[in-house]
């Protein structure tokens, strides 16, 4: 009876495990359709492998080749680039931007499984923001991220790139981006930011999506530019209207 139960459970669990791993065959076909032109056969990469990675030379030289090797990037990178819509890219050299995802869920899982099978690489991380500390998260975010992503995660401009606003980033994507360092973003290893610190950062970024908005209408959390617009277009306009209502308009006599 016990044996029967174990076998039954295994029978139930096996297809589930296969589904989570994704259909590699489907992934292989989609890779051939969407990715192989730049990333090469079996994700070998068309750029020389040594220019991939962090470092001062990375940004200018990365553009020389078509696309980096995907061997060893693991499910983590595939999951991030595909689920944000960063990939496939319209043409090489563009900063990947958040777009609607063109694949459905089985296709995504297939592609991720296929890319993960190309080499030994990191799994999709599972951040636990509820275990992080908001205060530590804010401190870490200000130290490491705010210089580009703005202190409330509203994004901004840095030379040559547009650090995106973080309003649409999911917990997993935040954790992934920290490890990958997409485009010109630096990559943070587990030594630089431990998983528990990542939990805190994720918690802060999630908080920053709708922070404590005491004080009324939050006009974008970016400070003086919207404030100036309100001062002129609401405040000053209202007061000039008052002046015109109280004072007199022109008459010719």
């Amino acid at each position: 009876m016990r044996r029967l139960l174990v076998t039954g459970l295994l029978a139930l669990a096996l297809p589930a495990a296969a589904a989570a791993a994704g259909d590699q065959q489907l992934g292989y076909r989609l890779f051939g359709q969407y990715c192989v032109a730049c990333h090469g056969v079996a994700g070998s990469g068309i750029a020389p492998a040594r220019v991939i990675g962090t470092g001062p030379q990375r940004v200018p030289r990365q553009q020389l080749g078509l696309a980096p090797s995907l061997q060893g990037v693991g499910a983590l990178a595939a999951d991030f680039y595909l689920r944000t819509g960063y990939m496939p890219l319209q043409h090489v050299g563009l900063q990947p931007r958040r777009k609607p995802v063109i694949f459905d869920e089985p296709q995504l899982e297939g592609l991720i499984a296929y890319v993960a099978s190309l080499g030994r690489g990191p799994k999709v991380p599972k951040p636990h923001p509820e275990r992080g500390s908001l205060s530590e998260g804010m401190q870490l975010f200000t130290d490491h991220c705010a210089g580009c992503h703005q202190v409330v995660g509203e994004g901004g401009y840095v030379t040559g790139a547009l650090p995106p606003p973080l309003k649409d980033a999911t917990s997993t994507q935040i954790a992934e981006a920290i490890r990958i360092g997409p485009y010109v973003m630096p990559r943070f290893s587990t030594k630089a930011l431990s998983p528990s610190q990542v939990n805190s950062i994720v918690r802060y970024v999630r908080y920053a999506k709708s922070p404590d908005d005491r004080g009324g209408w939050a006009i974008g959390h970016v400070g003086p530019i919207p404030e100036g617009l309100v001062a002129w277009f609401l405040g000053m306009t209202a007061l000039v209207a008052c002046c015109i209502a109280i004072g007199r308009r022109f008459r010719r006599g």
Partner: protein
Amino acid sequence: MIRKLVRFLDRRTGTAPLLRKTLRYLFPDHWSFLLGEVALYSFVILVATGIYLTLFYENSTATVVYHGPYVPLQGQEMTQAYRSVLDISTTVKAGLLIRQTHHWAADIFIAAIVLHLIRIFFTGAYRKPRELTYWIGLTILLVSLLEGYLGYSLADDLLSGMGLAIGYGVAVSIPFFGANLAALIWDGPFPGKHDFFSRMYVAHVFLIPALIGALLVLHLALVALRHHTQFRETRRQTERKVVGIPTFPGQTPRSLGLFFAVAGVLFLLGGLVQINPIWLWGPYHTYISTNGAQPDWYLGWLIGALRLVPGFDLTIGHYTLVANPFWGGAALPSLVFIFLYLWPWLERRFGGDSAYHNLLDRPRDAPMRTAIGMTTLTWVFLPFVAGSSDRIYVTFGLPYIPQIWAFRVLAVVAPPLAGLIAFWVCRELQAGERVERRRKRAEEEAELA
């Protein structure tokens, strides 16, 4: 009742003639004369809310660890100054309302002064015998810019610190004495020592407000002594005859109404629209920064100019003569203010008109002045917009570098073009009026015949 009050005061002070004169002073009733009053009432609100804030603000750079109610900052190191502003925004009764109203009032105060200045400039109200009034007004604007900057800096949040870093960079860039000047003000290299914060504080809450107050009194006294200008709208209004409404019962209720309107708008903004949410910015440390830090709107033209000036330093050998931030941060505002100060004299000297003027021009009546004014305004406005170029990129997707180049080209091409267009429009309007007058005359003659 007014009569009783005047009699009461007169029997004790003998000031009835003065009071009568005050009550019978004639105010021009065109709406554009009220812009200065908006600035005045904003200043009143600024002082009132400012006094409330000083009751809670702690001017100290000593470090403390935060244990207050705002969770994301708990356990963080910060200065007492920042913590006190945080407390004002979180726990002090009505603290946030008053702080926000104070900040909005500062934005509106300077906006009203700028509009007032534009009206004064384009109507020629600064001409003899009112140059003194004009120069004092300009000085109020100048010190108000500094006053606003100091207020923004005293909160010691992330934006304050970054703003001060830029200010320090500009101060150091001034040729020959810049470095010494900066060391003098900051009491050493950036971020300065405790004395620097004391200096900012005493300047912000006492010296500059007292100066602005004194200048305001002078400004208003001079306006009253030389009397307001007026538009030539009816045949009765001449250089020698004043048409308007008396202080009482005409102007007083209007002014009171406007005061309540200003107070109402400012407190509504303060209560309903978030401004400078310092709890979101966090405390400043020299090693951190945030993307997209900006000054308040009235210094936006300087941040824009810093961006637009191409990156170069004037050097002789290893000696830097003029560092880059000088052009955008110090040269531009100096030039604009020197031009504004000199303008009445320039116009007299080159326009050849040194007569007394109590009647205002409409902008079209003085095409040259209007053209030069539009040129200057465009020249200041373009860097002002360029100061937001990064947010324009993020919001509207216009790439940054092409934007900067477009602004650079525009900053050279657009001001003279704006001047030319203004000149042409004025001439066309004048011509249109001449045609109209001729037509009227012809019609009258036709009717007579």
